[in-house]
C-alpha cells in the first residue's frame, strides 16, 4: 500500500489528510484525516503526532506535502532575525518612507507601520543603473567591508540587498551577494532580484527585507521537518505548499521562503482547480468558510489568478507591508462560523470581524461564550442540527443560544428568531460582497461560474449566496471540511516568473517580446533541471501585463506561445481591447504597452486519481429525520435530513433538505435540488 499525505499546520490544529493508493491502479482507495494540536516552537512534533495517530507507515509514504504558517507567523509576531539592508547610495530610507499613504485619512494622529529594519542597519553602497538596466556608475565593492563589520558587531544574522533597477539587470546585486558570501559565508542573504523581477523599489526592498528576516527561521523549520520525517523512515518526496497555488521542493523554498507566506489559503483554491479539471468545470469561484474568515478566489477557464500585489497587516486604518511575491488572488473577509454578531452605539447590527475562536467559541459550545455567532444563528434556524453539532461531539446548548439572540435583538425590537435571521443575512451580505469583488467587480458574470464551497461553513452558506448572485450551480466536494489540505495532493510543482520590462505593443517589438518569454522559459527549465526534472515534465502558462500608454494599472492577458509573429501582435491588441472593455465598458484608440511578462512554469509529478464511490440512487437509507428548518425569505419548511456518508453516486435530492456530514452541513433551499456525482461530490442546481 502506498500513501500520499498532506499536512497543514494551523494556529490551533495541525491537520493531516492522506490517501491510500491502490497498488495496481494507483487510484485513491480511501481518503482519511487526522488532527493534533499544533506544537510551537517544535512544529514537527505536531505533524509527527498526526502521522503516528493515523498509524501511517513512513516507509510506505511516497509523497508528503506541507503547508505551513511558519513564515506569516514569524512576520506577524516579529520573531525573525536581526536583519541588515544594503541599498543604492541615496536610498536607504526607502524602507521607512514607504509610499507615504495614510489610509485612515480623516485621522490626524495616524501611525505609520514601523519598518522591519531600523535606520542604523540600513546601509548604502555606491552604484547606479538606469531604468534600462545600463550601468551609470560601477559597483564600489570596497565600501562593503566596513558595512559587514558593523553588521557583525550589531549581531546581524541576515542581510537583504536591494539595488535600484535590479529587476532590469541583476548583475550588481549578484556581484554584491557573491562578495558578501565570500567575506561572510555564514550570513543569510537575500537579493531583491531573487524574490522579484518587478519594479517599485519600496515593494521589492521590503519583500527582500522580510524574506531575509524569516529566512534562517524557515530554513531551520524545514530542516527539522525533513530530519524528523527521515529519522522515522520517510524516503519519499517532500514538497512545500507555496502561496502561488503550487507546491515546490524544499530546497527552492528554503532559498526564498517568503514565497510560502500565504501557503494555507492557496491550497484550497488549488484543490478547487484540480476538482474542476476532474469534473470538466473551467469557471469556478472557490469559496472557503472557516472559523474566523471567509475566502474566495476566481478561477477563469481553469486558470488560478495570481497577483504579486500582496500585503500583510493592511487594514482600512493601516497601510501595511507589501510583499511582491506571487500569491493566489484571494479576497478574505472577517466572517466565519465563529464571527460574533453585535450592535453598535446606533443600533446597527454587524457580524464580525471579531471571532469567538475555539475558546469560548459559539454560545452553543456552552464554554462561556455569551455573544451569538454565525454558527449559533444557523442553529437557531435549525439549519445545523443541535443534536448532531460538530459531528455529534457536543450537545448544543440551545437555551443559552436563544437567550443570546433575545439579548441581541431586544434593543432593535427584533425577536430572537428574527435576530438570528438578521445575523445570517448580514453575514451572507458580507460574504456576497467578497464574492462580488472577485467576480462582478472584475467584469466577470457570476452566471458563468460554479461555486465550489468548502471549509467547515462553506456548504452552509453557499446555496443562499449562489441564489443571491445568480450563480447557477454549487459544488460541495467530498471531504469538504478538509478540502484545502487535499488540494496539495492533487497538484503539480509551480514556479512563477514575473519580469518588468516595459515596451510598446508594436509589431516592431514582436521579436523582443518572444525573446523575453523564451529567456524566462529557459530560466525555468534550467531551475527545474537542477532538481532532476526533464524538459518533458515542464509545461507553461504565459501572460502579458498590458495597459494603455500612460496608465498605471495593467491587465493580465494570456498568450499561447513564446513564438510571436507580427500577426500575433494584432491578436494581442484585440485580446487586450476585449479584456479591457469587458471590465471597464469602453476602449481607447491609444497605444498599448507591455509592462510585465509573467510565466507560470509547472513540473508534472505523478498524481493520484480519485476513485469513484458506489452507485446507489435510493436515498431512503440516507434519511436521518425530518425537521422544520427556517429558510428565511423562503419561509419555514419541513426539510428532509440526509446523512452524506450514506448517499451513493447518482442520488437525487429535492429541497427543502439538509445534508449532514462530520464537520460540515449543506443547506438545500425549497426550490433547489442536488445530485451526487460518481466521486461523491454534491452538485446543487440553484
Amino acid at each position, binding site marked *: 500500500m502506498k500513501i500520499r499525505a498532506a499536512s497543514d499546520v494551523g494556529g490551533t490544529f495541525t491537520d493531516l489528510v492522506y490517501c491510500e493508493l491502490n497498488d495496481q491502479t494507483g487510484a485513491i482507495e480511501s481518503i482519511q484525516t487526522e488532527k493534533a494540536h499544533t506544537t510551537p516552537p517544535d512544529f514537527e512534533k505536531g505533524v509527527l503526532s498526526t502521522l503516528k495517530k493515523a498509524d501511517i507507515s513512513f516507509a510506505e509514504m511516497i509523497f508528503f506535502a506541507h503547508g505551513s504558517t511558519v513564515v506569516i507567523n514569524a512576520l506577524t509576531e516579529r520573531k525573525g532575525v536581526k536583519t541588515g539592508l544594503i541599498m543604492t547610495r541615496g536610498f536607504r530610507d526607502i524602507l521607512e518612507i514607504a509610499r507615504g499613504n495614510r489610509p485612515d485619512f480623516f485621522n490626524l494622529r495616524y501611525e505609520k507601520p514601523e519598518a522591519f529594519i531600523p535606520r542604523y542597519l540600513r546601509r548604502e553602497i555606491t552604484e547606479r543603473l538606469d531604468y534600462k538596466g545600463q550601468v551609470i556608475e560601477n559597483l564600489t565593492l570596497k565600501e562593503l567591508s566596513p558595512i559587514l563589520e558593523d553588521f557583525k558587531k550589531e549581531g546581524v544574522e541576515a542581510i537583504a540587498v536591494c539595488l535600484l533597477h535590479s529587476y532590469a539587470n541583476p548583475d550588481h546585486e549578484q556581484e554584491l551577494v557573491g562578495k558578501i558570501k565570500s567575506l561572510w559565508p555564514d550570513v543569510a542573504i537575500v537579493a531583491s532580484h531573487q524574490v522579484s523581477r518587478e519594479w517599485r523599489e519600496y515593494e521589492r526592498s521590503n519583500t527582500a527585507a522580510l524574506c531575509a528576516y524569516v529566512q534562517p527561521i524557515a530554513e531551520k523549520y524545514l530542516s527539522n521537518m525533513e530530519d524528523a520525517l527521515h529519522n522515522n523512515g520517510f524516503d519519499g518526496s517532500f514538497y512545500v505548499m507555496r502561496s502561488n497555488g503550487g507546491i515546490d521542493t524544499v530546497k527552492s523554498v528554503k532559498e526564498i521562503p517568503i514565497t510560502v507566506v500565504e501557503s494555507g489559503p492557496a491550497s484550497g483554491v488549488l484543490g478547487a482547480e484540480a476538482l474542476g479539471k476532474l469534473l470538466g468545470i473551467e469557471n469556478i469561484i472557490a469559496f472557503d468558510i472557516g472559523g474566523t474568515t471567509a475566502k474566495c478566489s476566481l478561477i477563469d477557464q481553469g486558470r488560478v489568478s495570481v497577483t504579486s500585489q500582496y500585503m500583510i497587516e493592511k487594514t482600512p486604518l493601516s497601510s501595511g507591508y507589501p510583499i511582491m511575491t506571487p500569491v493566489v488572488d484571494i479576497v478574505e473577509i472577517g466572517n466565519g462560523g465563529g464571527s460574533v454578531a453585535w450592535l453598535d452605539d446606533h443600533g446597527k447590527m454587524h457580524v464580525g470581524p471579531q471571532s469567538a475562536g475555539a475558546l469560548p467559541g459559539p454560545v452553543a459550545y456552552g464554554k462561556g461564550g455569551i455573544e451569538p455567532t454565525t454558527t449559533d444563528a444557523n442553529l437557531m434556524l435549525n439549519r445545523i442540527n443541535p443534536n448532531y453539532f460538530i459531528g455529534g461531539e457536543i450537545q448544543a446548548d440551545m437555551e443559552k443560544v436563544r437567550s443570546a439572540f433575545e439579548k441581541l435583538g431586544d434593543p432593535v425590537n427584533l425577536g430572537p428568531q428574527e435576530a438570528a435571521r438578521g445575523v445570517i443575512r448580514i453575514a451572507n451580505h458580507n460574504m456576497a460582497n467578497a464574492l462580488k469583488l472577485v467576480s462582478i467587480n472584475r467584469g466577470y458574470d457570476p452566471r458563468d461560474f460554479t461555486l465550489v464551497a468548502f471549509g467547515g461553513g462553506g456548504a452552509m452558506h453557499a446555496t443562499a449566496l449562489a441564489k443571491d448572485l445568480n450563480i447557477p450551480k454549487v459544488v460541495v466536494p467530498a471531504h469538504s471540511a478538509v478540502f484545502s489540505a487535499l488540494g496539495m495532493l492533487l497538484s503539480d510543482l509551480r514556479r512563477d516568473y514575473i519580469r518588468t520590462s516595459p515596451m510598446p505593443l508594436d509589431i516592431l517589438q514582436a521579436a523582443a517580446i518572444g525573446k523575453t518569454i523564451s529567456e524566462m522559459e529557459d530560466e525555468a527549465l534550467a531551475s527545474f533541471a537542477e532538481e532532476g526534472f526533464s524538459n518533458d515534465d515542464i509545461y507553461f502558462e504565459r501572460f502579458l501585463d498590458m495597459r494603455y500608454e500612460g*496608465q498605471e494599472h495593467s491587465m493580465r492577458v494570456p498568450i499561447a506561445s513564446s513564438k510571436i509573429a507580427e500577426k500575433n501582435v494584432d491578436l494581442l491588441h484585440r485580446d487586450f481591447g476585449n479584456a479591457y472593455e469587458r471590465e471597464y465598458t469602453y476602449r481607447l484608440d491609444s497605444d498599448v504597452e507591455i509592462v510585465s511578462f509573467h510565466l507560470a512554469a509547472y513540473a508534472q509529478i505523478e498524481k493520484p486519481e480519485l476513485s469513484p464511490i458506489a452507485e446507489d440512487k435510493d436515498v431512503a437509507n440516507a434519511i436521518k429525520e425530518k425537521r422544520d428548518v427556517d429558510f428565511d425569505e423562503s419561509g419555514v419548511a419541513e426539510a428532509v435530513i440526509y446523512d452524506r456518508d450514506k448517499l451513493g453516486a447518482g442520488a437525487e435530492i429535492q429541497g427543502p433538505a439538509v445534508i449532514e456530514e462530520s464537520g460540515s452541513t449543506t443547506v438545500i433551499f425549497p426550490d433547489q435540488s442536488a445530485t451526487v456525482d460518481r466521486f461523491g461530490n454534491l452538485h446543487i442546481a440553484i
Partner: protein
Amino acid sequence: MAKEDLAPKVAEHDPITIEIIQSSLRSITDEMFATMRKTAMSSVIYEVLDFGVAMMDADGELASSGSGIPSFVGMLAPGIKSVRRKFTKPDDIKPGDVFATNIPHHGGVSHLNDVVLMQPVFFNGQIISWLANKAHWVDVGGTFPGSISVDALDIYQEGLQLPCIKVIDQGKENQAVIDIMAGNSRVPDITVGDFWAGIASMRSGEKRLQALIEKYGDETVRYAIADYIALGEAMARTELKKLPMGVYSATEKLEDGRVVKAVVTITTDAFTVDLRGNPKQGKNALNSSLDATIVDAQMVFKALTDPQSFANAGSFRPVEVLTDEGSIFNAQYPTAMGVYYETGMILFDLIWKALAPFMEQHLTAGHYGSICGTFLGGKHPDTGKEHSIVEPQLGGWGASLDRDGVNALYTGQHGETFNVPVEVAEQRNGLMIDRLCLNDAPGGEGQYIGGKGINLDYRILGDDWWISMTYVRSESGPWALEGGRPGSTNYINVVRKDGSEKRYSSCTALPLEKGDVVQVVTANGGGYGPPQKRAKDSVFSDIKNGYITAERARYIYGTEA
C-alpha cells in the same frame, strides 16, 4: 417625494435590510473609486489619488463617498446643486445624461483642473440618486503648463472653463465638447482618457445601484439613504458633545507678510469657524472658493468626531463657516484659484493650530503643512514625447502627547495618496532621481520629536525643461506644542550644472537644462514638550539612527553620547 415622507417608520423598515442597503452604498462608491483608479491615464489620479467619487440622494445631499483624499469628500454635493440650479425645466435632465463643471466660483469645484462629472440615476422615471466624480486633470490649457501657477491674474489664464454643461446626452457623448477639451489641453490623450475613466467609474456605480434598487425597491432604498444621512448626523452630534466647549483662535503670518486668522467656537450643537476679517482676495492664484473653505473646516471637524466612521452629508451638519465675500477664503469670479490647495492648507493648519492645545488626544503638533505641489515638464529624452508631471511631496508630521511624529507622510489633506516609485518615475518621466531620503535638518526637537521631511533630488536629463511650484511654510517651520521646538521649512534648491545654487519657495515655468538638479526639501514636523524631558534612551537611539548629530543632541538635550 417630500422630506417629511421619509421620516423614520421603524415598524415598516426592517433594520437588517436597511443596514444591508447602507453597507451596499459604501461598496458602490468603493467600486466607483477602484474603477477610476484602474482606468485613469495620469499618475496624479492613480497614484496621488487626486480624485473623489460620491453618491448623493435625489436632492444632491452626500450619501456615500469613496475618496483617496479627505479634501474631496465634501466637494461633490455642491456640484450637483449647481446642475439643479441651471437645468430646471422638466425634461432638462434625462437618464444617461452626464454633466461637467470645473468653475470653482460656481460650486463643487476647487480649481479648473478639478473637473467634476455628474450623472443622475433614474428609477421608474424618477431621479433616485446622483453619482459624481471629481479628478485632477493634468492640463486644461491656459497660460501655464499644467494650468497652475501662483502668478495667474485671473481664471481666464488658468485654462478651459466648463460652465456646468451636458457632455453626454442620454448616453450619446457630445463629441464637439470632447474635442474642445482635448484641443485645449497640452496632453490631449491623457485628458480624453481621464474623461472616460470618470465615465466608467460612474457607470460601474450605476449598475450596482440599479441592481440594489431592483432588489429592495426604490422606496426602501430612498428610506435607507435618508436614514444613513440621519445616522451620520446623529453620530457627529454625539461626538461633538464630547469636545470641550469654548472659543479658540489662531493667527499665522504668510510668506507675503499678510496675516490670516481663524476663530473656532464649539458649542453643544455647532462647530463654527469664523473667518471674517481675513485678507481680501489677491491678484494671484492663492485664493479659495467658499466650497473649498467649507471642506477645510469639515476635515478638522471630522478628525475630532470619530474619524474612522463613514462620512456623509449628516457628518458635517454641525459645521458652520462664516466668511467675507471677496476674501481669500471666499474669492469671487473671475479670481484665479489655481493654487487654492495651499490657501486651503493654510486654513486647515490654522484651525488645527487653534484647537490642538486643547484636543491633544486628536491632534498632533503642526505638520509640514504644504501640499508641495511640484510641476515639472519637458521632452522625455528617450521617447521625445512632451511630458509633464504633477507631484505633491511627502513631509514630516508633528509629535503628539505620547509619541514622536511620523516620518515622510502625505499631508492631512491627502490620504491614500501614494508617491511615485523612483524606478517608475525614471522610466515614465525621463528624469534621474539622485536621492530620496529623510531630511536630517535640525528642527522639531522635544520630549517627542517631529517626524522627518524628505530630500528628493531630480536630475534633469534633457534641455528645455521647466518647473513650477509654490510651497508654503517656507519661512517659518511647523508649530510645536507644550514647549517643543518648531520644525524646519519647505523649499527647493536648484543646483545648476555649473554648480551655482538658488533657493525657491515659489516659481513659475523656471527653465531647466540638462544636468541641472532640483533638490526638493520638505519640513520636519513640530515637536511636543520640552527637549529636556526626552528620555535618554530615545536620544541615544536618535543619534545611533542618525536622526540627530551627537553635537546637536548635546546642545538641545544636554546628552553625552
